[in-house]
């Protein structure tokens, strides 16, 4: 006798205004199975799990849980059906304590009142079971990123879910913690729980996965058995092309002048960092979220307080200058959050690029005021340079796809000539085709003698583009790798090491 699968999705499509996030996906999750969802950022993994966990309803298609057709209208509905989700964006309330968060949405009650004692007791028991060491009475805001991740996992498990969805749970866990999580997953499997597991770490799959479903650009590429597929095959399935076609070769200028030099930088989350950025070179920065790789730049640019250290740009001391002056003196910064910090969402692509042209004297018209006609011509030329489709020029940025939005953001760097280009997560949520176009822009900058910095959580990206790679761990540089030494294993090892090792 065969029981119906835990989750069976047929012909699922999802459209957001202007974007087709998923088209015609079939997906099945069996009892006691770890099913990996694999694909790049923006491939539709998160959308798929948001449908299973009731965050968004699908535009088309049906979903059955244990043979019964369901249509979740809220996260609450999905939870009632036994689906527990660990979201990638933390679903924790920072101001509440750990145990309050674990029980949020389903507080145990005694009569009218919330039973706080019971909440504390069951949370304590749960953390003991999991082997996670976290102070359950502390507010979540005081925990480290990894600890928050553990709370998030505990919260999903606490609901006694039959379907457990883990969206990149190991992204900020140490190896030891990851091992604990895996042993827990194995136990859950034995009890018949089905687990949907999203991760970018291919090397984890051999250890934990049963089947792997690959998504690309919102389409189902295929479902394969984990023990029959090689890493190389998976990457090709994911990207749709061989790796060496995605990342261009960038020629390095030997002995480039050090343009930007940081000495002893200390800021919140950064504990003493020296970096020299050279002309004609791509400098990569890798590390976990919260390792300080991004905050170094934000602090020297005045986006967060700089506590100590000196910054020199071409030999001139620019420490502590206001952001505006630093940008004027030759630094371009591409923020990681394009919607929050990069673009004026309601303005057109052209007007967004134009913002970066306001300081250009040669585009000024009568009385030194910006000339609309000239800046339009220039903005359109930049749009063409970054391969923005012409029909996108006059559209509001909010209606463009993530890839085109990112092109607009890149375009803002081409209005004026800068010395140093700092790209913080340059391709987050961008499809493969656009990525390779953006990488070509980065190549052109570096080869024309600019200094380029790439801060990225996407390990293959930063590995393949960088001439020199700095690995960050807990606010310090834990390794500096060059050329042939830039390999995944070495980098991952240094994600957690405290001491600096030079290669």
């Amino acid at each position, binding site marked *: 006798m065969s029981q119906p699968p835990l989750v069976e999705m047929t012909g699922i499509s999802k459209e957001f205004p202007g974007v087709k996030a998923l088209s015609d996906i079939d997906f099945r999750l069996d009892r006691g199975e770890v099913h990996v969802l694999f694909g790049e950022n923006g491939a539709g993994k998160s959308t798929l799990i948001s449908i299973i966990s009731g965050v968004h309803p699908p535009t088309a298609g049906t979903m059955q849980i244990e043979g019964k057709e369901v249509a979740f209208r809220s996260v609450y509905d999905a939870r009632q059906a036994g689906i527990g989700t660990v979201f990638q964006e933390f679903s924790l309330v920072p101001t*509440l304590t750990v145990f309050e968060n674990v029980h949020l949405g389903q*507080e145990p009650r005694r009569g009218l009142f919330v039973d706080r004692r019971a909440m504390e007791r069951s949370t304590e028991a749960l953390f003991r079971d999991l082997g996670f060491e976290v102070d359950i009475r502390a507010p979540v805001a005081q925990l480290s990123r990894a600890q928050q991740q553990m709370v998030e996992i505990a919260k999903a498990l606490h609901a006694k879910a039959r379907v457990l969805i883990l969206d990149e749970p190991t992204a900020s866990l140490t190896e030891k913690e990851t091992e604990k999580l895996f042993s827990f997953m194995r136990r859950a499997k034995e009890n018949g729980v089905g687990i949907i597991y999203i991760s970018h770490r291919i090397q984890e799959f051999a250890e934990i996965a049963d089947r792997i479903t690959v998504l690309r650009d919102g389409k189902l590429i295929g479902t394969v058995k984990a023990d029959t597929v090689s890493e190389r095959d998976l990457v090709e399935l994911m990207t749709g092309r061989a790796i060496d076609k995605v990342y261009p070769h960038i020629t390095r200028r030997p002995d480039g002048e050090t343009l930007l030099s940081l000495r002893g930088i200390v800021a919140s989350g950064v504990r003493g960092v020296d970096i020299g950025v050279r002309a004609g070179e791509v400098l990569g920065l890798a590390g976990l979220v919260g390792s300080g790789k991004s905050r170094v730049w934000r602090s020297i640019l005045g986006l967060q307080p700089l506590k100590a250290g000196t910054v020199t740009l071409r030999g001139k001391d620019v420490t502590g200058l206001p952001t505006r002056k630093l940008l004027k003196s030759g630094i371009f910064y591409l923020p990681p959050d394009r919607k929050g910090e990069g673009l004026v969402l309601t303005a057109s692509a052209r007007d967004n690029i134009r913002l970066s042209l306001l300081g250009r004297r040669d585009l000024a018209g009568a009385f030194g005021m910006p000339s609309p006609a000239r800046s339009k011509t220039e903005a359109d030329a930049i749009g063409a340079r970054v391969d923005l489709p012409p029909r996108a020029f006059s559209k509001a940025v909010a209606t463009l796809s993530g890839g085109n939005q990112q092109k607009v953001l890149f375009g803002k760097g081409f209005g004026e000539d800068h010395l140093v280009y700092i790209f913080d997560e340059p391709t987050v949520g961008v499809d493969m085709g656009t990525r390779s176009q953006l990488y070509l822009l980065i190549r052109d900058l570096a080869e024309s003698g600019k200094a380029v910095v790439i801060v990225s959580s996407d390990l293959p990206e930063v590995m393949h583009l960088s001439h020199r790679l700095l690995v960050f761990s807990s606010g310090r540089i834990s390794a500096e790798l060059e050329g042939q030494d830039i390999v995944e294993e070495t980098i991952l090892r240094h994600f957690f090491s405290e001491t600096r090792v030079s290669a």
Partner: protein
Amino acid sequence: MTSPDSVTNGSSPVSPRFAPAAAVRTLFLKVGVLPFFLVAALIIFSLVSGNFLSLENLTNVARQSVYLILVSLGQMIVLITGGFDLAVGTTIALTSVVSALAMVALATAMPDYVWLVIALGCLAGFAAALAVGCLNGVGIAQFGVSPFIMTLGVQSVGAGTALFLTGGVPVSRLPYEFGNLFGFGRVLGMPVPVLIAIVAIVVIWIMMNRTRLGAHIYAVGGNKKAAHLSGVNTKKVLFSAYAICALLASLAGLLLTARVESGETNLGGSVALESIAACVIAGVSLRGGIGRVESVVLGAFFIVLVQNGMNIAQIGSYLQMVLLGGLLILAVILDQLRYRILVGRA
């Protein structure tokens, strides 16, 4: 201002310069500006007048602060959800007018049942306030209007309605018993308004700290999206917050009506500012998610204490407005500073 000596007691003699500063800093980070403001006010006003610290005056302040405490509790709930309510003043005025009109009308219809008339009048007042609260709640929770615009708009709607109902003339000839009990009455030697406030404080404390709704109010304000993803009905929580806020303001409105013995459209004119000030000074975060009932009670008490002190010091009411506004802004600036230090540490 406080002299340095006043804060050194209890510190270790080893590093006499550093330790008090550190202690002050810790206290500031932990509880916010209220203790400092309170100490400063007590010192300044007791220097100005010997009467200020007398038991009689402090009891008086406690009685006067009842109304602001009630409104501030409601304001706190809304602030914790990450919004605010500018319509609390209008809620008071509308409650006052509607309950007074209802009592006067019912009293002529059935003059023999005074207590029934009073009860129905109060219910009418609560109903009017609830309508205001629901209007705010629907606009903010369902239609996603920003709390600022929604409550500002409702503020005008409510004030206009109150004026329209009365033509701007106070509603007098309320039942004598109403004012006698709820305005000036005493039970077991305690003024009735104070007793009612104590009951309200206890109820709201229990609600915020021991019920699911309270937990959800903190959660929605702390991170609305996280609360939603945890299966909390965020719309219902927001709606309830504004409804409860209106009911608390309404309670204050009824007690004030009893005190002045007439239905007035100009009651509660400055209470929106005062209640927000009381909450912010008491450490309620304008970003939502943080705030304690007991601190807010003390915060409201502090505001009334300052007003009382300024009266004793014979500072005119116009200048009092200036000082109160300045105090609010100062409290917000210090709150920002505290937040920055807290985040910088993490």
